[in-house]
């Protein structure tokens, strides 16, 4: 009998999976932090137009959205299929824009109020009439910084 155990015939040890949870947790935390749950339920359909001269929206807290588009199917009976405005969680009329802007301004820090940007998120098939009305309303309350939401594309539109 030998003094030592036989060394041969040893299978490669299984790779330890003990650190797998750690790795997965790391990924998990990453995604948890970058996830932004949808803030509002869109009740209107927005097919975004495409454009080349667009910039990323910085500083999300300074951007307030005005959504314009036709209502989704279940609201069609009540509101028709023409484009309407949605502010925050509810449908709105053009005349509601000014009070809404003021209310949103109140919620902001005083130092940031002048930096507020109104993002017009408009369905591409919408007619300009309602968009123009909204713009005029925004001018009245001096919310002059606007941005037209569009997807970035590299190819030309024609």
């Amino acid at each position, binding site marked *: 009998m030998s003094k030592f155990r036989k060394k041969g015939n040893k299978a490669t040890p299984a790779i330890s*999976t*003990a650190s*797998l*949870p750690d790795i*997965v*947790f790391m*990924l*998990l935390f990453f*995604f*948890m932090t*970058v*996830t*932004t*749950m*949808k803030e509002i339920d869109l009740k209107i359909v927005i097919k975004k*137009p495409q*454009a*080349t*001269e*667009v*910039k*990323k*929206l910085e500083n999300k807290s300074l*951007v307030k959205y005005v959504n314009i588009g036709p209502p989704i199917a279940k609201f069609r009976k009540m509101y028709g299929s023409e484009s309407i405005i949605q502010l925050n969680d509810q449908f709105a009329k053009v005349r509601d824009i000014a009070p809404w802007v003021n209310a949103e301004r109140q919620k902001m820090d005083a130092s940031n109020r002048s930096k507020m*940007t109104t*993002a017009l*998120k*408009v*369905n*591409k*098939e*919408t*007619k*300009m*009439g309602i*968009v*123009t009305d909204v*713009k*005029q309303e*925004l*001018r*009245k309350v*001096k*919310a*002059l*910084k*606007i*941005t*037209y*939401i*569009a*997807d*970035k594309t590299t190819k*030309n*539109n*024609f």
Partner: protein
Amino acid sequence: MARRALTEINAGSMADIAFLLLIFFLVTTTMSTNTGMQRKLPPPPEKDVKPPEVHARNVMAVLINKDNFIMVNSVPMQLNRITEKAKEFLANVNRREDLPVFENKEVPILGNVPVSKGIISLQTDRNTQYEKYLQVQNELMRAVAELRDARSMKEFGAHFDDLEGDRLDAISKAIPLAISEAEPRRSVKSKGK
């Protein structure tokens, strides 16, 4: 009582649980990077102040009618020619008589340089499609962006997008973003002109 050795909790399923959560967040994540075209609206018109007179040669009137046809200075035009036309108008390289006048203005770094007085006025009908409006707007913005980039290359040897501080200011002032979000026209009646 016999003492049983504490059995270790099997941590093998930990990974599964974590994976489950991970997949959930993966699916719900919408790395939402909204992009948009940034513009500035003109301040509201004051009651008694008349809008400043603008000489006809300084205006490029872009009109989109209810059927989404484009007219530039009363001439129908295809979308793909707008940028070129706008650049020609704003730059006025040969200082033509029918294109905008230049006026010397004080600009940071560059000093006293001629700045175009040209204004592009974009008007739409109430029934114009938003997408068309944005496309035309995009072409016009591109015209300005290309002019600025060219100027920036010439003056500083860098792309306009990479400029900062005074240099950015200089180019922005030398080539202003002169696209006017015009007053809407009560377009039902107004025809031609």
